[in-house]
């Protein structure tokens, strides 16, 4: 029987299991089998359990921005290999593979757009590019996105999706946390709003810098959010983690996100918030 097909992810997408493109799609969270066309209509949200599948950056751009248009900037920024890092694979090869797989030069797309007519500086991270990790290029592109907000006096919207800082650039990756957060301090002083959107997963170095610093922090349901990875915590404390630990719902309950927002309401929620916080 071939009701559904586990298939290769399309360009610039999430993991294999999260973006099937067969006729039928099996929910990785609850096992429900749904007609793929229906899933597309539902923006890849499971109708049974509300699990939000990972979707491509381009899908978010379509979904969030006026006419689905982002005027991209800094497209040509690419990583160097300052540490000459090598594990099972050379970092330079890892980069090439990620570029081939995603069709992108790096793990974030950034630029200028409009949301309900309001100009915004926008950036979106891509998990398919080395786990959405933040190295020098991601840090620099986010920094420039913040600077565009500051220079033009327009709101900042960042969609995060990242396992944290990029190990292969060592201490340089760590410093991207400072670079971005310091510029956000300047943005805050100028009273320019910043909405941070967290998607599955947002953890570690990204969560411990710009993702946590929004004037408003919105998160998709059932995403993994946190500082340390669950495996690390489990190993440290030597016991099982409580049900729902480090989920969006947990983060809301503990007071670290403003609102859980289903994908289909993201655009509307951001727009409504910005209208309270920003005037031309």
């Amino acid at each position: 029987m071939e009701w559904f097909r586990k298939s290769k992810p399309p360009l610039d997408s999430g993991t294999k299991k999260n973006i099937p493109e067969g006729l039928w799609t099996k929910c990785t969270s609850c096992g429900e089998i749904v007609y793929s066309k229906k899933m597309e209509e539902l923006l890849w949200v499971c109708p049974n359990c509300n699990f939000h599948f990972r979707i491509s950056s381009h899908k978010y751009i379509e979904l969030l921005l006026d006419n689905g248009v982002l005027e991209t900037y800094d497209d040509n920024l690419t990583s160097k290999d300052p540490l000459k890092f090598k594990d099972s694979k050379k970092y330079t090869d890892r980069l090439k593979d990620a570029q081939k797989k995603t069709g992108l030069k790096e793990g974030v797309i950034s630029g200028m757009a409009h949301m309900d007519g309001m100009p915004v500086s926008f950036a979106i991270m891509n998990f398919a590019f080395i786990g959405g990790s933040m190295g020098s290029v991601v840090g620099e592109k986010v920094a420039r996105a913040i600077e565009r907000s500051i220079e033009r006096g327009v709101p900042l919207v960042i969609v995060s999706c990242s396992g944290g800082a990029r190990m292969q650039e060592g201490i340089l990756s760590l410093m991207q946390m400072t670079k971005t957060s310091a510029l956000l301090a300047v943005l805050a002083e100028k009273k320019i709003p910043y909405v941070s959107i967290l998607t599955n997963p947002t953890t570690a170095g990204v969560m411990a810098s710009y993702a946590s610093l929004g004037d408003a922090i919105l998160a998709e349901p059932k995403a993994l959010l946190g500082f340390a990875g669950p495996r690390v915590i489990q190993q440290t404390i030597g016991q099982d983690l409580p049900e729902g630990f480090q989920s969006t719902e947990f983060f809301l309950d503990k007071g670290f996100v403003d609102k859980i927002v289903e994908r289909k309401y993201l655009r509307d929620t951001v727009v409504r918030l910005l209208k309270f916080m920003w005037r031309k």
Partner: protein
Amino acid sequence: MSERPYLEFERPIVELEKKISDMKDFSVGESIELSGEIASMEKKLARLRQDVYSNLTRWQKVQLSRHPKRPYTLDYIELMTTGFVELHGDRYFADDHAVVGGFAHIDGQPVMIVGQQKGRDTKAKLYRNFGMMHPEGYRKALRLFYLAEKFNVPILILIDTPGAYPGIGAEERGQAEAIARNIREMSRLKVPIVIVIIGEGASGGALGIGVGDVTMMLQYSWYSVISPEACSAILWRDAGRAQEAAEALKVTAEDVMGLGLIDKIIPEPPTGAHSNHAAIAATVKQEILQAFDSLKGLSVEQLLEKRIAKYRRMGEFQE
């Protein structure tokens, strides 16, 4: 000197030291003239030290940074400052013992000192949580930073942590938020901030109190985006390959200086900071005073502009 070596590469040195000291005792007790022999052995010892310590691998330097006799934050406070008044608590949740802070005088100048603290024996290690801070620790530090800013007292930070604590309570109370907020707020504090990495500088755990105007590293300290063990566990699913990870990550003071991310390396005594607390404290104190001096002429605007410009430049890419 220590009777038992802690690190394998210290062994030949410690053994020779023991031999020399025994011989000295013997020559005094029995009034036998062994001075020629002793002198030649001391020469040999000096050569041996030079050999071992000039060829340390990155991993060996990491090990030195964790030497159980290495001076910790409170040792530096005792040796470098006077009139330390420790201040506790974040005013929201608890007092985090993994970080200490308070006012003190260094060479007559008032400073706010904040630093991670490790424990030496088992009980103290647990009390200090191995120098791994919880969110309340970052919030306590931030409270003290604001206090310093309010009364225009410069800030001195000593970093020595294997990382921010990865636990359930830490996540519940917002470890990521606490670190992110500190990084942002420290980048705009209106007083000079001098940072010395005295031992371990692990990732966000270090950076959460690690943003400032001058950053210096002790010769055998390390600073990295991830600890060699954790990196090894991720890359090879095996924490045992930390040695390779330390090499790949380029974690030493020399490496970080080479990348232009710190201002200075503070040299340690020939056999590491642990072998002479007084000497290293005196050196560190001089460096700190010089660093504060170098910031003295700047207005608040200049200070902040310089600070942000420094971090803005960090990163290596092409376009």
